[in-house]
């Protein structure tokens, strides 16, 4: 199949970028979106041009590295999938596909489609952990946790930190990400001891990184490759407001 690409090219964080047109023939509908980019880069390198820089790693939807804003949507037209899980059969022959990097103040462009998502790392470093060693798998089995709570924690823990929530949100808000990180620890006994201070610190760091506020449009949850629920944002709000009223941090 033939694909007309419009790809955001930007030399580095300080340079101005623009959309550049590329035409690809002989694209297989069975290729993943990233494989299509491999073909493009191969052609560019053979011509002596600079290949398009884009993030990718596992290519099986679990690492959270791929991050393309495709035809106006984070990770493209499919729901519940990352860019690497998107296949060219989702497009029609001769389609024009616009590819841009995530856009957010907190995610500055490094090059082309690559953005710096270390703001997420710093949010997690501010409190998204349990401070003590909670043991190995054997110890986990000795802490009985009701199935519904384990499922709730697991649903939140599915977050791969790709940043699609920020990219899709009209406010570039990181609430779904922070909510997932706060939620999966807050519902489990190992995480409960620090749940107040965690919510306070992670929200403070989220604000400091320059993410927007939540307007509850629901775009994040729709575009999330793991379909993380807005219930977790409500829990984050509860945890944060409860912490502000009850925590020891005056």
């Amino acid at each position: 199949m033939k694909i007309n690409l419009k790809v955001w090219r930007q030399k580095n964080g300080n340079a101005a970028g623009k959309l550049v047109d590329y035409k690809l023939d002989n694209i297989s509908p069975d290729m993943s979106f990233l494989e299509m980019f491999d073909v493009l880069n191969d052609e560019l390198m053979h011509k002596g041009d600079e290949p398009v820089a884009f993030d990718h790693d596992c290519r099986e939807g679990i690492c959270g590295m791929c991050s393309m804003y495709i035809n106006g949507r984070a990770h493209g037209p499919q729901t519940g999938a990352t860019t690497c899980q998107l296949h060219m059969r989702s497009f029609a022959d001769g389609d024009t596909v616009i590819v841009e990097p995530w856009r957010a103040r907190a995610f500055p462009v490094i090059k082309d489609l690559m953005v710096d998502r270390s703001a997420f790392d710093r949010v997690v470093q501010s409190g998204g952990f349990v401070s003590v060693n909670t043991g190995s798998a054997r110890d986990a089995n000795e802490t009985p946790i009701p199935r519904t709570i384990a499922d709730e924690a697991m649903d939140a823990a599915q977050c791969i930190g790709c940043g699609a929530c920020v990219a899709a949100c009209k406010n570039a808000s990181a609430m779904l990400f922070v909510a997932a990180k706060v939620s999966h620890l807050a519902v489990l006994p190992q995480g409960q001891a620090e749940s107040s201070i965690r919510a306070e610190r992670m929200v403070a760091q989220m604000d400091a990184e320059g993410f927007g506020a939540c307007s509850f449009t629901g775009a994040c949850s729709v575009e999330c490759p793991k379909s993380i629920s807005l219930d977790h944002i409500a829990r984050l709000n509860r945890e944060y407001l409860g912490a502000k009223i009850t925590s020891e941090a005056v």
Partner: protein
Amino acid sequence: MSWVTQTLASSLGRKVIMSLTGLFLCTFLIVHVAGNLQLFKADGGRAFNEYSFFMTHNPVIMTVSYLLYTSIVVHAIMALLLTRHNQASRPVKYAYARPEANSPWSSRNMGILGTVLLIFIVIHMRTFWYTMHFGPIPMAEYDGKEYKDLYKIVLEAFSNWWYVLFYVIAMAALSYHLVHGFKSGFQTLGLRHKKYTPLIEFLGVWVFSILIPALFAAMPVYFFLKHVGVIG
């Protein structure tokens, strides 16, 4: 009280202020629409004028009304601050975005809808609230007691087709504002549970987004139709 200011200055704290002022304004709408239903009473405006007198002289109502004015101002200013903050969070916009694929229109345009409502509130208060408090206003007499005849002001205002149209448009904006705003107010407070969220969503749609704006819009339409003689 540094922790208080710190909380209220955070993105979540600001949303809480939006939520509390917004939900308070929602409760006001219930009282306002219920009281104004007396306009439909075929008694030449007596019930409405007596009600207006009560609302402007009862000390409890008067105290709550100052809370109401404050809520409107705080809600609007906080919305402005949040909008600026949110826009600054994405300095470079997408060349091509399809937000309609993942979120309802009303949820993305609360600022525009709110601006329409703020303009409406200013004009609405100039027409009725200002005239009621500072005149000039005709008087009516019931059982030997003088009342300000606000009913006559209502009749006069709603005899203008463009004024009626403006009210209907504003109530459409109210409808879209509340279909998102009411349920979001609870989400911000963390009140989301399978036991009561369906009720909140039901009330948000059927009461706050449909029933209340429709009743409000029915008032100018009713008096205009009366004025042109379509209804008796």
